[in-house]
């Protein structure tokens, strides 16, 4: 399961891109005319790389994610995964949304095994893997519990296990920690960083929190609305594995200041 692209130099050619958006746009027809949700986004993501789409709400970052997930097609431009044009959900995907979307009528274990159940595959052989995964995120004794018996942070951990059980090559995280309190959120960022240690997953993280983007990502794409574009890509050159010490480093703070200033320059923040 070695990632061929992972050890390549930082500036890879576009052909080595694992996920490749080429001038991808998405427009919706509305009563007042066409609404541009995403305006010609070009983005190449290497295998094993984590990229954060950072911006205010309405900047189209979730729409970009939905395109990569194969849930919506770009109106113009194209989208490629491993040199294959995307026409629907890729089997290598794992997604986590802001809402945990757990099923109250199934226990925690059955929720983690849901992907297999929905595809009509026998989930029984994956049982031990699911239990081990729950153990790793600190939910060892909770397999038989129901989602409504868990806290918000625990529920989102189950949702992460449900994505992880499929051993995805690509992780799509759509503001997965946004509904959690600050401490739980930071812990979850650490947990996901820890889960990825065995094998870096190609990850797209949609977030509106600068520190989250800097902590998690190798590159941060700064997005704005009107037009919904990527305005700048900041490479985050912080050592991995990242842990609690990462946030205390001067470089971490410098990146936050730099990205904050970029949003101010773009007129997203003023005052």
């Amino acid at each position, binding site marked *: 399961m070695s990632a061929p692209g992972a050890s390549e130099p930082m500036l890879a050619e576009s052909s080595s891109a694992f996920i490749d958006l080429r001038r991808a746009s998405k427009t919706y027809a509305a009563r007042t005319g066409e609404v541009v949700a995403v305006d010609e986004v070009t983005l190449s993501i290497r295998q094993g790389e984590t990229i954060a789409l950072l911006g205010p709400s309405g900047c189209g970052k979730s729409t970009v994610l939905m395109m990569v997930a194969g849930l919506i097609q770009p109106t113009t431009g194209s989208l490629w995964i491993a040199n294959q044009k995307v026409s629907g959900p890729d089997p290598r995907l794992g997604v986590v949304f802001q809402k945990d979307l757990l099923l109250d009528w199934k226990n925690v274990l059955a929720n983690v095994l849901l992907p297999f159940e929905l595809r009509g595959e026998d989930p029984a052989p994956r049982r031990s893997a699911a239990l081990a995964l729950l153990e790793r995120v600190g939910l060892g004794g909770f397999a038989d519990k129901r989602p409504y018996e868990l806290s918000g942070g625990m529920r989102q951990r189950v949702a992460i296990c449900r994505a992880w059980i499929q051993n995805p090559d690509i992780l*799509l995280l759509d503001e997965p920690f946004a509904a959690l309190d600050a401490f739980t959120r930071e812990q979850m960022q650490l947990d996901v960083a820890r889960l990825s240690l065995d094998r870096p997953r190609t990850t797209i993280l949609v977030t509106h929190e600068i520190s989250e983007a800097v902590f998690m990502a190798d590159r941060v794409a700064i997005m704005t609305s009107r037009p919904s574009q990527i305005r700048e890509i900041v490479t985050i050159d912080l050592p991995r594995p990242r842990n609690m010490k990462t946030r205390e480093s001067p470089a971490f703070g410098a990146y936050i200041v730099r990205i904050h200033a970029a949003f101010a320059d773009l007129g997203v923040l003023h005052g």
Partner: protein
Amino acid sequence: MWSVASGLLALALWGVAVAVLKPPAYILPAPWAVLARTWTDHALLLQHGASTLSEILAGLILSIVVGIPLGILIVAIPVVHRLVYPIVIAFNAIPKVALAPLFVVWFGYGLLPRVVITGSIAFFPILVATITGLMSIDPELLRLATVMRARQSRTFLHLRLPQAMPSIAAGVKIATSLAVIGGIIGEFVASDRGLGYLLVQASGTLDTTIMFAIVIILAVVASLLFYAISLVENYLVFWHASQRSK
């Protein structure tokens, strides 16, 4: 146990009213007179009550086995939704009492017309509740299923149907009350037995005491039926917030 206490309270209020106002027995009989009459005529009441109860239950089962699958079809197949749903709505707009004599022509005087009347009155809330329940699924959940490359049949079985269950259960509860009404209407129109038939007979002879006995029995039966359905609901959708708060 509170339901027993509230039943006793209703009886007490009734007893006090009779003792104070002393109305003639054909207007308002005393509760003890009704109780005594229930005891002396218990064989008759049981015999007719069994007939009524079987109609109610058969009608309720008919409404469930028609209402739920029809709701599923209407949600699953757009053509059925466009073609059949307007017919169903129009059918529901007809007062079913008006159909009762027609059912007698079609099905005769046996059990069947009364079961059909009961079922036709009770099925609509089940149908609407099934449709509402199946339609009110979180679109994000469907998106998640799509990303997981779920099969349609599996999405239905594991996502849509379970999350519609609380709504369907609520529909069946409403149908239970309607089934009791349907059973009695059926017996008013097309029967030579049952508590509804007995009511019509008693009305002709101004036998108010037995009429009260019948009405109380119907109230008790309908309540027990409602509790029975609630127990089934509690068992089936124990995970839902409405059940957990109990």
